[in-house]
């Protein structure tokens, strides 16, 4: 099955950066109401404005291999990046995942995220792969980041995900 790339299975069995850590600037809980999967995710930022850097993303997740692996890869790709860079990765992931197989992803932008290209052909699984990413953008917003200016791959400004991939609840 092209969906379950070795990298996905590997991350789902041994997720990177798992567990909730301190300190953090914001914490969110997102659930996928159709299957009951959930993730609690924290972000720690350093600095201000466009130069703010994501110091840590920690999480506690309950979910399928796609959602677990996607959140794991997310942490690899965004920890240590500036907020604008991380939002570009998010936008590229979202574009790929919603492309119905047309966009195989740019490894230079999303790194190991390209392993999830196959997910876009299974519309029922897009929410699984987006769960952690939606939680991340929500957590960034709650940490004071303006996420309304998330670029899409063409460089245009796009709003937040038109159809929320999950429902959220702020926690402290």
């Amino acid at each position, binding site marked *: 099955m092209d*969906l*379950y790339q070795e990298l996905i299975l590997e991350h789902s069995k041994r997720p990177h950066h798992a567990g909730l850590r301190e300190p953090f600037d914001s914490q969110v809980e997102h659930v996928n109401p159709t299957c009951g999967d959930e993730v609690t995710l924290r972000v720690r930022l350093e600095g201000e404005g466009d130069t703010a850097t994501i110091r840590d993303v920690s999480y506690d997740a309950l979910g*399928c*291999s*796609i959602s677990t692996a996607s959140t794991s890869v997310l942490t690899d790709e965004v920890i240590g990046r500036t907020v604008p860079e991380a939002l570009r990765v998010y936008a590229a992931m979202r574009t790929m995942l919603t492309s119905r197989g047309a966009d195989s992803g740019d490894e230079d932008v999303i790194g190991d995220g390209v392993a999830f290209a196959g997910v876009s052909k299974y519309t029922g*699984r897009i929410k*699984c792969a987006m769960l952690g990413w939606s939680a991340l953008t929500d957590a960034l917003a709650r940490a004071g980041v303006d996420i309304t200016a998330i670029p899409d791959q063409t460089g245009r400004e796009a709003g937040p995900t038109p159809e929320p991939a999950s429902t959220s609840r702020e926690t402290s």
Partner: protein
Amino acid sequence: MAAVTTTTRPTRSGSAEGATALTAPEVARLRADFPILTRTVRGGRPLVYLDSGATSHKPVRVLDAERAFYEQHNAAVHRGAHLLAEEATDAFEGARETVARFIGAPAGEVVFTKNATESLNLVAYAFSNAGAPGAMTGVDPEVAERFVLRPGDEIVVTEMEHHANLVPWQELARRTGATLRWLGLTDEGQLDLSDLHTVVNERTKLLAFTHVSNVLGTVNPVTTLVERAREVGALTVLDACQSVPHLPVDVAGLGVNFLAFSGHKMLGPMGIGVLWGRAELLAAMPPFLTGGSMIEVVRMEGSTYAAPPQRFEAGVPMAAQAVGLAAACDYLTALDMSRLAAHDHELTAALLAGLADRPWVTVVGPTDADDRLGAVSFVVKDVHPHDVGQVLDDSGVAVRVGHHCAWPLHRRFGLSSTTRASFAPYTTLDEVDALLAALDRVPEVFEVSI
């Protein structure tokens, strides 16, 4: 307070006992009535559809009935001074008679709704609206009192309910100040009736429960629950979505006050459901949805309402779907519901036996096929149900994954979700084998040691 009475053991159905299951050639013949079963899915594989508990497929006879209505009789029913309107009305009311006969009810006690969810909400809002000033004017005070909920009154449900038979009652409790209580479950997936006499008590005004669990397949002891409800004067609502497609259901024999089911799970069209209710109760109930069709006299100052069932059918009704549902009832009757129950039992037993041979699979719900019907839900060791479903889909096997709109039930068993296979008359033993063979790929794909 009466001593705890012995509970009757649930059976699949009194009238289904002893019926012979469909033979393989019979199932093969009836499959030819379902065009969708000939299509292929991913990789050109034949479709193995084991998701009929979510929605069933429709035989040509049902599709033809809907089409014939639109092609030959289409008109808004109960309106119009023309021939087509008369024919459409006759078709709609004729469909009501057929559906009523299918469940052993008088036609006047059958209300057509959008689906079972609307049927249950219709009852919930009757309770809610009964408390409004003037809503029960002219109703026998004793009957009216049964519908009025106040703080201190109690509504009882069970922990195995589909959200459609839980959330409306939660909301009703919130609106009226009544308290929601529930019967728990045993580890085996049966209702825990050890505290039936305390949970259902003199304060209980309403007991709502499912006939057959959409997750566990458990067949509930309707008689025991109805007897207790009667002792305390509570009204009973039965969610029959998973029983009417699989069992001979006779409303008089069940003894409940209300019964709800959907058309699309019983080979009928989407967009139509049924609420059956006892005539004297429907007659006392205030309307839920209001507007055209359901009125008696309308003046600017206020309106009076039609007698049931029209009182609960506001707007132009879904006549084509009613005709389609009646065709589904005729189709099921011709197959013989008792034999379909036996067929279902055979499929359930085969799947349970196959899963028992696989120690890395855990079934939720009763392990004895005699105690269940229609659906088998399970979890695979160390693999998330969504991933199980994806591998099955890759083999052409369609199942449902998730909490199946029964989240509290899953929580009760410490699960977030399960994989569910569910049956219909067209399901074959070969399809059960196909599911088991596809399931054997799962540990391999996810490198799980078994």
